[in-house]
Structures are given as structure tokens and as C-alpha cells.
């Protein structure tokens, strides 16, 4: 390492400057998107998400019956594993600021912490949208390969399935972010996110009085209709909304309050 020997005068002179404006939401969002990819861990998480979708399609090309090798059948199954990894992305985006202690610089530069949190939520939602595009692209490649290798290779799909996929992935990434905001610690948030709803599901199966509420609160059940081509009914939407209120909106709100109040050190 070389060291600057002479004090370099002038270069750090405090200057009288015109009033500076605060950074826009767009700027903050770009920064948060960049933070998702500028570390090895972040890049690998995104690559893994892409690879998982590709692996699912490849497996189907090898093992699925020819008639089942359709665009829909390539697309829908890739949503589930991607939907498991996206919350991890949401969690890490929020909690790494605390585990890596970058919160100290981040919140010194943007003391309105809610703006940083909003930028992070927008960034991970955009990533969730991109993941749906990736799933579509991989499914399209799968369909092309299928039609070239004797599979059905049919393209027809309800547009509603794309909307469902977007809802599914955006809500799962937000659920992850909500747990991250609330727990502010990566391992705790990941374990909490993966364990709590599952635990709830298991309890719902085992404990009879809980079976009713679990129909409304177990996200793995309430989100299930999104995977099917059948139109989602009003009651199904209602259950979904209730479960998301409990597992996404409430932790988001409580987590935001906690993040705004927390001492950064």
C-alpha cells in the first residue's frame, strides 16, 4: 500500500455550496438494487434463483411425460422453489445492514430511515418481478426444446397465471423483508420466516380446534389457488388477504417502527 505523504491541500477544502437536494426515491432504489448484486453472496443468491428455475425445467424435460411438456407445466412448478429463495433475498437486503453494520453509514447518509426501507422494499419487489420474467424465459426455452425433442411443446396459458405468479413472488419477497425488518438479524429472520408459518401449518393439522383458523392463516394453504389455472374465488382471495395481513402487513408495520427507533451503533 502506498501512502500519501504530503498533505494534499485544496482537495478537501470545505466549500460554500448551493443548497443540496435530498436524494430522490429513484436514486435510493438504484442504490438498494446495486447493493443486492455488489457482493459475492448477493450475486450467488440471484444466480441460484435463476439456476433453480432452469433445473426444474431440465428435470421435466428429462422425466416428464411428453404430453405434459407444455409451457404451463414448465412455468408453474418453477415458481415454488424460486418463491422459497426470494424471501431470503428480502431478509438479507434488510438485515445485512445490521449484521454488516453498514446501517451506520446508510442511516448517516439518509437519516429518514423510512425512505431507505421503502427503497429496499421497492428493490426486492422489482427483483421478484424479474424472477417471474426469468421463470417465463426458462419455461419458453423448455417449451422450444420440448417441441424439438418430441414433447408436446404447447404454448397456451391463461394470462391470469402470470398475474398470480407476480402476486405470489412479490408477496413472498415482502414477507421475507417483513421478517427481516422485525427481527433485524439474518439467521433469526430466516429461521423465523421458514419455521413459523410451517409450524403453524403443522399445528393446524394436529390440533383440531386450530384447523379452522389455519385455513385462513396458513400461507402455504391460502396461496395454493394461485398455482392453478382455475379462477381464484372471492373466499380464496379473502383467506389470502387475511393470511397476508398476519404474516406480511403486521410484521412490516411492527418492523418499520422497530427499525425507525433502533439505535444504530
Amino acid at each position, binding site marked *: 500500500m502506498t501512502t500519501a505523504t504530503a498533505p494534499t491541500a485544496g482537495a*478537501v477544502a*470545505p466549500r*460554500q455550496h448551493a443548497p443540496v437536494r435530498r436524494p430522490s426515491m429513484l436514486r*435510493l432504489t438504484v442504490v438498494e438494487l446495486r447493493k443486492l448484486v455488489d457482493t459475492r453472496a448477493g450475486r450467488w443468491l440471484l444466480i441460484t434463483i435463476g439456476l433453480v428455475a432452469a433445473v426444474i425445467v431440465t428435470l421435466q424435460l428429462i422425466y416428464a411425460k411428453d404430453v405434459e411438456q407444455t409451457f404451463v407445466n414448465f412455468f408453474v412448478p418453477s415458481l415454488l422453489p424460486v418463491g422459497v429463495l426470494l424471501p431470503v433475498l428480502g431478509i438479507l437486503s434488510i438485515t445485512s445492514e445490521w449484521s454488516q453494520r*453498514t446501517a*451506520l453509514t446508510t442511516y*448517516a*447518509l*439518509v437519516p429518514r430511515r423510512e425512505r431507505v426501507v421503502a427503497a429496499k422494499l421497492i428493490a426486492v419487489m422489482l427483483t421478484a418481478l424479474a424472477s417471474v420474467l426469468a421463470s417465463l424465459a426458462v419455461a419458453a426455452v423448455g417449451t422450444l426444446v420440448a417441441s424439438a425433442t418430441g414433447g408436446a411443446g404447447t404454448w397456451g396459458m391463461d394470462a391470469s397465471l402470470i398475474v398470480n405468479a407476480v402476486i405470489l413472488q412479490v408477496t413472498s419477497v415482502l414477507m421475507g423483508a417483513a421478517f427481516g425488518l422485525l427481527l433485524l438479524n439474518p439467521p433469526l429472520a430466516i429461521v423465523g420466516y421458514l419455521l413459523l408459518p410451517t409450524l403453524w401449518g403443522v399445528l393446524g393439522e394436529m390440533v383440531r380446534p386450530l384447523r379452522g383458523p389455519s385455513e385462513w392463516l396458513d400461507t402455504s394453504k391460502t396461496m395454493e389457488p394461485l398455482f392453478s389455472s382455475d379462477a381464484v374465488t372471492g373466499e380464496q382471495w379473502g383467506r389470502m388477504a387475511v393470511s397476508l395481513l398476519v404474516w406480511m402487513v403486521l410484521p412490516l408495520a411492527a418492523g418499520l417502527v422497530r427499525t425507525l427507533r433502533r439505535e444504530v451503533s
Partner: protein
Amino acid sequence: MITVENLTKRYGPHPAVDDVSFQCEPGTVTGFLGPNGAGKSTTMRMICGLTAPTAGRATVSGRAYRELPNPGREVGVLLDASAQHAGRTGREALTLSAYTMGLDRREVAAKLDLVGLNAVAAKRRVRAYSLGMRQRLGLAHALLGNPRVLILDEPANGLDPEGIFWMRGLLRDFADRGGTVLLSSHLLREVEAVADRLVVIGGGRIVAQGNKNELLAGDGTVVRARDGAALRRALEAAGLSAADSSEGLLVQADAEAVGQAAADAGVALAELRPAGGGGLEQLFLTLTAGESTKEAVR
């Protein structure tokens, strides 16, 4: 300009910072001193809006930190050099902040250059940085937005002698051009060399503050003569009280008065100088005596 008014922070029943008030004027370097656990870092975090004060308030350039529209352009902050993402490169860490502040990308290279992190170091991940390199990166970060105010918590910690010398020049130059610097450090010689004003805290309370020269001058004078008894009589005759110390007689008066008293009595002096010679170190130890870490940490 930094104004701190009656800042107080309690963790549980014990105040970590207790009714602290001081001001840092443009054009000055203020040395912020105190034993471990005295509350320096906590005070600085409160100034920067990172810790909510229990009572009191602080402003930077006339506004609460949280009200600054783009704080990085007004205040350069270095609170903890190790608070960087280990997996990012030095350059990337600065690039993120430069973009947040809306700065030209060239500022990143310029500041890396300024603090002496070369291209190879800038491309390395912070995980692989030495303590001194992290400190330099932190300084580059604080200087990035060309601020008018600097708040630095132990910035010399881990710097090599050359780096410390360089930083002294940089801070002096920054203040001489009208900047405001608040600097905490345990390297008293550094603080003595660069600071104009001192704020000393112990156990969360201010124990002394003011102009560095005035604070140091309050120390008295050490005087020694081969004929100690004659010197003592001479001082008594001049109405100066003298106390024994390991180095000679300690007189609560300036060197001129002591020298005159000795000359009037015809006593030849062997030594005459401001007390201590340890200067700031002695002042620090006197002021914070009893404020041991044990008490501060509780």
C-alpha cells in the same frame, strides 16, 4: 458549526451522557477527550441522529441532523471504521455513498487517492483490509461529499505514524479553510498538536472545556535550582505558593513571575518551564482522575 445542548442519554438507570453542552465553531478543531466509556462515541452518535437522546438536542450547521436534506454533503462522519460490508470492495463502498449523495463518480477515485488507498487496495474486499486501511477508507468516506463539518471518532486509531502525520495536516488545513472538526482520540499528542479547543468528559459529564492553550496554561510552572531552600525562600518572599513535585517545585504562576522572583533574590535556576511537559497528558489525567473505566462501565 456543531451545537450540543444539554444532551443526555440513559441506558437503564445510568446516564452514559449526562447534560453535555458544547459548541464547535467553523475554523476550529475541537478535541473530544475522555477515558474509555466516558460517552464520547455516544455523544457523537446522538449528534448524527443515530441514537435518540433521552434529553437535549444537537444541531449541525443550524439544523438537527435528521433535518439535513443531504447530510453527506454537509457533514463527513466517521464513527467506526470497521462498520463496512466485509464483502464489498473499498471502491464499491464509496461508490454506493457517492451515488446516494449525488456526487460525480470521479470523487471516489479522488478521495481514494487522497487517503492513500491505491488501485489494488481499492479493488480488494474490505474483509482483507488491515485496520489502518479500513480507517483510511472511513476517512475517504467522511471526506467524500466535500463537507464543511467533520465528526471523527478515533480516526487515528490504527494509522501508521506517516498516516497520523498526514491526517494532522489534513485536519489543520480543513479547519484553516473554515471547516469545523470534532475529533475524539486517545492519542493525546495528536490532539495537542492539532486541536484549538478541548472538550473533556468523564463519566458522561463535561469536566473541562475551552481553549487548548488556556487549559494547558492553567497548569503552573515547574522550577528547579541547585539551592532548593534559597529558591523556596525567594518564592515565599514574592508571595508565590510552591509545592514539591517529583520534577522540582510546582508553582501556581507563570514562568515570567517565577523567573523574576528568583532573579530578585539572586537565585540561579537550573530549570524553568510550564508544568508537566506531559502537557495534555497530565491535564487529562488530573481532570479525569477517579473517572476510571470501571466506574464508567459499571
